[in-house]
C-alpha cells in the first residue's frame, strides 16, 4: 500500500471545497439576498452610530418638524432624509432602531423555539413510547392555538396585571417568550421525524454498544445528523417571527410607540395615511418586506442545497 501523505484539511479548507460554497457562488439570488441581509443587519446593529438622531432621546425630537416628507418630495427638510413621523422623529433613524428591535425579537424567539423544539423533539423521538405521545400531544395542542391568539391573551393579561408601564419595560423579552413558546412544535416535529429516521441506523446501535449514556447519544450523535432540516426551518422561522412581531405590534400588542419596531412604526403611520403622510407607513413597510424576503430567499437556497433529494435526484 502506498503511504499517504494527506494532511487533514483545516476547517477553512473544508469550507472552501464544500458544496455549500460552490452552490452559493453559482446562485446570484442567494448572493444578492445575503448581501442585502448583511447590509440590513449591519445597519440595524450599528444604528446608534449610523442614525442621524436617537429616537429614544426625547430631547432630540422636535414636534414642529413632524410629518415632514422624504427628501424627494416637495416641502422636505434635508436634515430628515426619509422625512419624519407624527411626533417629529427622524424616520431613517427610527427605522434603523426599529429594524434592530425586530431582528432581536426574530432571532431571540427562534433561539427559544429551537432550544425547546430540539430538546423535546430529541426526547420524543429517541425515548419513544409515553414520553413521545405526551410531548407530541402537547405540540398538537400548542399548534391548535394560533400564535396571534396566544400572544393576544398573554399580552393582554400581562398588561392588565402589571400595567402598561411595566409592559413597555419588558416588551422585548416578553415578545421573545410569546413567539418562542407559540412556535416550538414546528421544530419538535421536524427534529422528531429526523431522529426516528436516524435512530434505526447502525451508528446509534454502535454508540449504545460502546456504553455511551443516552444523553450523549442524543446530543452528540443524533443531533448533528439532523441539523440540515433544522437550518432550513430556522430561516423560515426567523422570517415568521419577524412577521408575527410586526403583526402584534400593528395590533397594538407588541412594541410600544416609544421603542418602535418596524411593525409599530407601520401602525403609527397608519393613522396618518389618510392625511397624506404615506411615507411613515410605506417606508418601514418596504424595509420589512425586503428583510423578510431576503431571509426567505436564503432559506430557499439553503433548502435546495441541503436537501439531497433535490440536487442528486
Amino acid at each position: 500500500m502506498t503511504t499517504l501523505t494527506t494532511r487533514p484539511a483545516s476547517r477553512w479548507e473544508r469550507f472552501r471545497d464544500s458544496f455549500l460554497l460552490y452552490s452559493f457562488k453559482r446562485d446570484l439570488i442567494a448572493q444578492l439576498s445575503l448581501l442585502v441581509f448583511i447590509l440590513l443587519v449591519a445597519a440595524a446593529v450599528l444604528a446608534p452610530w449610523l442614525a442621524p438622531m436617537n429616537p429614544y432621546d426625547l430631547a432630540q425630537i422636535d414636534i414642529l418638524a413632524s410629518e415632514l416628507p422624504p427628501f424627494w418630495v416637495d416641502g422636505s427638510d434635508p436634515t430628515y432624509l426619509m422625512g419624519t413621523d407624527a411626533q417629529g422623529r427622524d424616520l431613517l433613524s427610527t427605522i434603523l432602531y426599529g429594524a434592530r428591535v425586530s431582528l432581536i425579537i426574530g432571532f431571540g424567539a427562534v433561539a427559544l423555539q429551537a432550544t425547546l423544539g430540539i430538546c423535546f423533539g430529541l426526547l420524543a423521538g429517541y425515548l419513544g413510547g409515553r414520553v413521545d405521545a405526551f410531548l407530541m400531544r402537547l405540540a398538537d395542542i400548542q399548534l391548535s392555538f394560533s400564535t396571534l391568539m396566544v400572544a393576544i391573551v398573554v399580552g393582554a393579561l400581562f398588561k392588565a396585571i402589571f400595567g402598561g408601564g411595566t409592559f413597555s419595560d419588558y416588551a422585548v423579552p416578553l415578545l421573545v417568550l410569546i413567539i418562542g413558546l407559540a412556535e416550538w412544535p414546528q421544530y419538535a416535529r421536524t427534529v422528531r421525524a429526523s431522529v426516528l429516521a436516524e435512530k434505526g441506523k447502525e451508528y446509534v446501535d454502535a454508540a449504545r454498544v460502546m456504553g455511551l449514556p443516552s444523553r450523549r447519544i442524543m446530543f452528540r450523535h443524533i443531533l448533528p445528523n439532523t441539523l440540515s432540516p433544522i437550518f432550513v426551518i430556522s430561516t423560515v422561522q426567523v422570517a415568521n417571527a419577524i412577521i408575527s412581531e410586526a403583526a402584534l405590534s400593528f395590533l397594538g400588542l407588541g412594541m410600544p410607540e416609544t421603542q418602535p419596531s418596524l411593525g409599530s412604526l407601520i401602525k403609527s403611520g397608519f393613522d396618518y395615511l389618510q392625511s397624506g403622510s404615506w411615507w411613515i407607513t410605506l417606508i418601514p413597510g418596504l424595509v420589512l418586506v425586503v428583510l423578510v424576503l431576503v431571509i426567505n430567499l436564503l432559506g430557499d437556497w439553503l433548502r435546495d442545497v441541503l436537501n439531497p433529494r433535490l440536487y442528486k435526484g
Partner: protein
Amino acid sequence: MSLLDVNHLDVRFALRGGDVRALRDVCFSLDRGERLGIVGESGAGKSVAAFSLLNLIAKPGYIAGGSIRFDGQELTTLSDRALRKVRGHRMSMIFQDPMMTLNPVLTIGEQMVECLKAHRRISTREARGISLNKLQQVQIPSPEARLDQYPHELSGGMRQRVIIAIALLLDPDIIIADEPTTALDVTIQAEIMALLLELCEKHNVGLILITHDLGVVSQVTQRMLVMYAGRVIEQGPTREIINDPQHPYTQGLINALPQMATPGSRLNQIPGSMPSLSNLPSGCAFHPRCSFVERADGSRRQACHDQVPEFVTSGNCQAACHMVAEMIESERIPAEEQD
C-alpha cells in the same frame, strides 16, 4: 467456571399478534480467549443472541427468561448504569456494515476519544494517544492522519479496521463480531478476518463470531453453535462439526457449500425455507424440511412431529435431533454393525 455462561436464554418480541419467541432455551459458554462461532440462516436468531448478550434488544423485544452470567455478574438483571460499564468496556461489538457503524458527522478521533472518555477518566490528549496506538495495531496506513478524518474519507476495509480498533479500545474481554466481513469484498474479507484473529490471539480476547460463512468459522473458531429457528441445534468443537455433522440441518448446510457439489451439477440445497417464528411446526422445528423423518426402513419417526428434541451427546458434540438420539441408542446395542 467460564467467563461467559448463557443458560436457557429466552428472548421474545411482544407483537400485536402475541409474543414471538426469537430465542428458545439457548445455552452456551465462552472461556477467556476462546473463539466461538454462531452460524445459521438469516432469521435464525444469531443477531438477537448477540444483542441480548449486551441486553440491548430493541423494543418490543425483551429477555423473558434464562441467565447470562459474565465474570460472575448476572447481566439480565443488571441496572442500566451498571450495564453501560460492561458495554464497550468489557464486551464490545463489531457490526456488519462498516459504512453505517461510524457516525458520519464526527471524525474518527472524536469517536474514539468519546468512547474512551465514557469509561475512563482521562484527558483528551491521553485518549488520542491510546486511539493512535490502537489504529497502529490494526495496521491502518498513516494512522495519525486518520484521527482527523471523517468516515466518508476512508474505504470500506479501512473503516472496518477503525471499527476493530474501536472495539479493542478499552481492552475488552469479549468481542462480539456480527458478520464483520459480509459487506466487504473477498480479498479484504480475508485480511480483516486474519487481523481480527491475530489481535484476539495476541490480547487473549474472547471472540463470538456470528456469520453464515462456514469457511470463516472453520478457520477462526475453536467451537461453534448451529442455530435454527431460535434454537441451538448443534454445538461442539468446530473441526468435529465441520468434518462430521450430526444434525441433518448442519449436514444440509455443509452440503450446500459450493465445494461439496460435483462440478457441472446443481448446488445442493436444503428444500424449503425456515419457518416463521410466530408459526413454528410442532415437534422438531426442522422436521418439515428434514429428509430423515422417515427411517431407512420406510417407517416414520413420530417423535419428530410431536416432541421437541433434547440435546444428545455424540462424541464431543451435542445435537438436538431424534434421529441422532435413535442412532446413539441403537449403537449401545452391541449387535449393531458400525459403518
